[in-house]
């Protein structure tokens, strides 16, 4: 297998039942997919199994890939659907804001928290305490560096909703930080 072959071509080969092409795609993308899923389901064992299922989905549906979005975007969209579906099957409520606030507040009171950790560490904790929807859009935009249209494709929501969801997630971060005694001065 030519290791420099483009993802699109690999997917085309997978559509032709080429399992070597699938393995190459797997080697290339599984860490990103695993990390993305793990951030949603918060369980590494589940994330590993779901990552495998994503590539099984690729095997089954590669023929439907039309190349209108980047292969990574397509893979992340499959991963998103798998992860959200798994959350629903577990019958667990998505990470709600109230729970997030209580967790953050339980960890430290504001003065102690500010003394113990710098703002970036607090910000990281607040990102982790966001709702699933908010955390996911933060990860997709800041870590996976998706554009508006790519995030829209991954999440299956309109582009305007992508922008609004991210905007609301950022405002929520400010609220959580404020609860910890850190006023960002925005919004």
């Amino acid at each position, binding site marked *: *297998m030519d*290791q*420099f072959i*483009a*993802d699109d071509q690999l997917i085309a080969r997978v559509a032709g039942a080429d*399992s*070597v092409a*699938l*393995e*190459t795609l*797997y*080697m*290339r*993308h*599984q*860490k*990103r997919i*695993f*990390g993305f899923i*793990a*951030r949603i389901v918060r369980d*590494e064992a589940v994330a*590993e199994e779901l*990552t*495998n*299922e994503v*590539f*099984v989905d690729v*095997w089954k549906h590669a023929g439907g890939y039309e190349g209108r979005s*980047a*292969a*990574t975007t397509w893979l992340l969209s499959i991963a998103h659907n798998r992860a959200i579906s798994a959350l629903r099957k577990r019958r667990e409520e998505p990470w709600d804001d109230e729970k997030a606030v209580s967790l953050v507040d339980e960890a430290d009171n504001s003065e102690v928290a500010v003394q113990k950790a710098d*703002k*970036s560490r607090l*910000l*990281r904790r607040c*990102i*982790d305490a966001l709702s699933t929807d908010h955390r996911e859009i*933060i*990860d997709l*935009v*800041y*870590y*996976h*560096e*998706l*554009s*508006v249209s*790519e995030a829209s494709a991954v999440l299956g929501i309109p582009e305007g909703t992508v*922008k*609004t969801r*991210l*905007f609301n997630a*950022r405002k929520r*971060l400010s609220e959580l930080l404020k609860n910890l005694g850190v006023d*960002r001065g*925005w919004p």
Partner: protein
Amino acid sequence: MNEATKREETRREEIEKMLPFYVTGRLDHADAQEIGDYLKHHPDVANQLDLVHAERDSAVAANAIYANRAVHNFDRVAAMIGRPAARPARATGRRLDWTDRIKQLFAMPSSPALGLLGAAAAIVILLQAAAIGTLVVAHYPGIFTGASGGNGAVDAGTTVFVRFADDATTATIADAFSGLGVRIVDGPRGGRLFTVRIGPKNMGEGERARLIAALKARSDVVAFVTQMS
């Protein structure tokens, strides 16, 4: 509130919504230009860029905990699709030395880091990747430390995640790293992160803080540093 004020507030919110994409460079040229122009005339909004940068860095750090997870075994997937793992050439024989793997990653034009970037940014990263992945390994072996095997696991030691400045060169990286006695041990991961070993596992907090500060001080080379949790 009059119509003009309403329009201005709406406009401001639209700009604010686009700031994260402006910072990550994922806007098309026209949109980026438009936002850049707006920020020039609205310093209060421009001040928010610091917040967005902080959010991005923290999001990268939050995701970084998964960046060093070992490569999973394809056998499970192969079994699920009813095909034995084919074992392409690179998966047989000796385990890949990490420098082989890093060069493969760099060389792949569709590697995740590149696949998610706009064309201009991709060129920058590709050039950076080529420089680091090929030239550095060949000509600056002292920058690298072989990690424990080829699966991306990092050898015992204190490590941090580093993202290099877009205009970092092989020579400046070599200069910075040799002076500090730190080594790249893995990368790149999502978010264009490299794992850098800064010392032994039991290094003191003071020394660790000193080295991290020294890395951050080399802003010509290092764009971002975060400790691995």
